[in-house]
């Protein structure tokens, strides 16, 4: 502690943190006095220095005056300072820092999408006593223009092959059904997430039929209501399907469908704000951590790191605020890999635990909206073809949403969110037109692209603490099914944080260790 206090860089002092926000070479133009300090009257050395650099014209003046030189320059500086202290001056000791995040926060959640907000909600809901934990959610884009949540197609299903995925989805459906009890805020209107209980229809060819049967068995064991259909039953039920090449189909009867993810996001946001969680519009640029060396039982040296501060940089400015925190939760979605790198995850020789990076990266996915006047009717479920192409109905006007995941070789460049319309012509339309003959005539109305937080290891989420960076928790990497598991994942992470272990749904197969140990959680039904 003492050594850190004496370090010039940090300059924290006995009275708490330093004076003013730490600023780069910003030329904000106004005299920023000390921000957020605790009443100390120590003349801020740093701000004195910045005062100088902030006013280059002043230097020019001293040079310009002939014969008077430096002496007069200093006097006028002091005069200006005195003037600013007096009333009507520009100096305001009680500066408004409400746009900055707080200096201390127990939990900092990096990422304000549906997963981050869900973790915040459950932390505040499960904490004992109420109001004990200070939570800060840091989101760098309040318009959510690139967030996976807002750009998602919004489906929710239980047709997975991993039991944990099914349990997560079942709880999330129960959460969505009772959303107005979970997220009720007094005096605010209830939420309408516009759920379509139309179910999912997964089609399998000869090759995938056995896998589908075993998956359905697991799903039924967990409590999902899924029925298997032969091609003939399929034709009876949905006459618009061409069952050529389909050996088996699984149809979810209940608890499956699609909904409006934006409404869920705003509902969570509103509720979480009413519970006292602080929001910050900024970007995490740095983690300040300390490391300690220990030995494992077998004598190996291990370096444990602990994050002490999160530097949150404000939007469109160089100003940043160091937030002292106890825990960091990485819910940054597609950008979680970068956040993990900042925290020192993966800095080590490859093949070791230190060198295991978080294998989450951005992947771009396209969604197309088309109109087909003779298309399938109101009963259309969310159809996922054996080839990987999917579509669902949207609204009453015979509009359909759909897309397809590209293969590894055809992955588009995730640098921007531009839509490639040729991809629809070449890769999405043919399989869908083959499956639904009515789709031979359609007209694409619009399209958009969004990011998957793609887990390159096994396309399933990463949940839980990192073994070496001891106070960083992950809740990311869901590769396209994060929205439908968000409420349950939030609860699991909150249980891990508050109790140290999973209480309701056991997500131990989803811990970070599996990347080092090589244990893949194979999920067959990934779109």
């Amino acid at each position, binding site marked *: 502690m003492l050594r850190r206090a004496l370090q010039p860089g940090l300059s924290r002092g006995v009275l708490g943190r330093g004076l003013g926000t730490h600023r780069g070479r910003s030329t904000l133009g106004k005299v920023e006095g000390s921000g957020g300090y605790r009443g100390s009257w120590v003349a801020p050395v740093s701000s004195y220095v910045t005062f100088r650099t902030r006013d280059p014209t002043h230097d020019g003046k001293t040079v310009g005056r002939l014969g008077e030189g430096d002496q007069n320059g200093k006097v006028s500086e002091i005069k200006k300072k005195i003037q600013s202290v007096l009333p009507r001056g520009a100096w305001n000791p009680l500066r408004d820092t409400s746009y900055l995040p707080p200096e201390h926060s127990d939990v900092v959640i990096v990422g304000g999408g549906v997963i981050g907000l869900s973790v915040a909600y459950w932390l505040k809901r499960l904490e004992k006593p109420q109001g004990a934990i200070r939570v800060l959610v840091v989101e760098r884009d309040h318009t959510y223009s690139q967030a996976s949540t*807002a750009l*998602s*197609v919004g489906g929710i299903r239980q047709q997975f092959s991993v039991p944990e995925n099914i349990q997560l989805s079942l709880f999330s459906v129960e959460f969505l059904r009772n959303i107005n009890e979970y997220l009720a805020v007094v005096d605010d209107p209830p939420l309408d997430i516009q759920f379509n209980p139309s179910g999912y229809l997964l089609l399998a060819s000869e090759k995938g039929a056995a896998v589908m049967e075993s998956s359905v068995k697991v799903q039924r064991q967990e409590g999902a209501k899924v029925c298997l259909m032969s091609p003939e039953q399929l034709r009876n039920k949905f006459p618009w399907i061409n069952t050529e090449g389909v050996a088996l189909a699984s149809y979810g009867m209940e608890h499956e469908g699609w909904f409006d993810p934006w*409404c869920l996001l705003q509902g969570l946001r509103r509720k979480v704000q009413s519970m006292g969680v602080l929001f910050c519009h900024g970007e995490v640029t740095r983690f300040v951590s300390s490391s300690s060396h220990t030995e494992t039982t077998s004598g190996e040296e291990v370096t444990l790191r602990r994050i002490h501060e999160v530097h949150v940089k404000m939007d469109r400015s160089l100003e940043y605020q160091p937030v002292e925190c106890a825990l960091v939760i990485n819910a940054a979605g597609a950008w979680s890999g970068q956040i993990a790198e900042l925290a020192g995850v993966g800095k080590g020789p490859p093949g070791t635990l230190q060198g295991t990076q978080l294998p989450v990266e951005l992947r771009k996915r396209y969604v197309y909206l088309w109109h087909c006047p003779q298309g399938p009717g109101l009963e259309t479920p969310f159809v996922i073809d054996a080839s990987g192409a999917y579509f669902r109905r949207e609204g009453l006007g015979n509009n359909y949403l759909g897309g397809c995941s590209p293969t590894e070789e055809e992955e588009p460049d995730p640098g921007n969110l531009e839509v490639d319309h040729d991809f629809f012509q070449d890769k999405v339309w043919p399989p869908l037109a083959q499956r639904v003959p009515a789709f031979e005539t359609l007209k694409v109305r619009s399209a958009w692209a969004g990011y998957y937080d793609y887990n390159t290891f096994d396309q399933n989420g990463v949940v839980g603490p990192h073994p070496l960076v001891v106070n960083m928790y992950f809740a990311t990497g869901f590769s396209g099914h994060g929205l439908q598991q968000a409420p349950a994942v939030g609860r699991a992470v909150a249980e891990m944080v508050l109790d140290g272990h999973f209480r309701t749904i056991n997500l131990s197969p989803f811990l970070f260790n599996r990347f080092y140990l090589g244990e893949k959680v194979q999920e067959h039904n990934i779109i």
Partner: protein
Amino acid sequence: MAAPRAPLHLVTPVWNRGTRGTRGLSRAVAPEGSQKKGRSLLRFLADRFYDVQALREYLLRKQVLKVHQKNRPFTYIKERFGPHAAGAYFILKQGGAVKFQGKEWIRSDARGHFSLDFLKFQAVPVEAVDASGCAINYQGLDSVLALKELQSLWLQRCPHVDDWCLGRLHPLANSLQELSLAGCPRISERGLASLHHLQNLRRLDISDLPAVSNPGLTRILVEEMLPSCQASLLSSNSLPGLGEVSHPRKLHSPNPLTSPYLATTTSRNPCS
């Protein structure tokens, strides 16, 4: 964005109508001015004092729990007398009416009392359920779904029946022939899309659904989805102006004209 997003405020007037209907069974509609003033005062206090906020949250929670309590399952009756008797008891307790096969309609009187004679019926199936105006919700439908030979289900003006409940009705597909959802404030066209499992449905009443955005188009699409079913937008059962205040007991008596065994004339809406 993903789906055309209806603004949240669109739901508010619908919600208010529904809850005022169930809460205001015993009192007349309060004058708007005083209600608004009282509400804004409470809001002012709740924004500034944690105690008031906690109290209001507690009262809200209690309301929700009241509905849950009304929809609790009667497992003892189910085990002792069978699912039909348990379902009938549940509906009668909520204030609805039940018709057993070959018997008359049984309903509770104005004070909520009803005779327990039906418990003596040995495995006589329930044929028709009239749960209009009852506070039945997703959980409460458990008791109704156990009635495997139900032919006619009336859920008019139920404030807690929503799209999720409609997605649950598929176990009744073999027997259900008549379904009435008139006046339910929370049902939208998305829930109606899940009715395609009910292949034996002959009459469907979807009139006066405030949350359905386009009633005429919805009716056409539902009729395309269920070819042998008649979907009606103007029901002879619904009385004018029943959106807000619901008096389920007095005014709604089982009308012989709407019995499933008699032909009915339903006036069709000209396509708009």
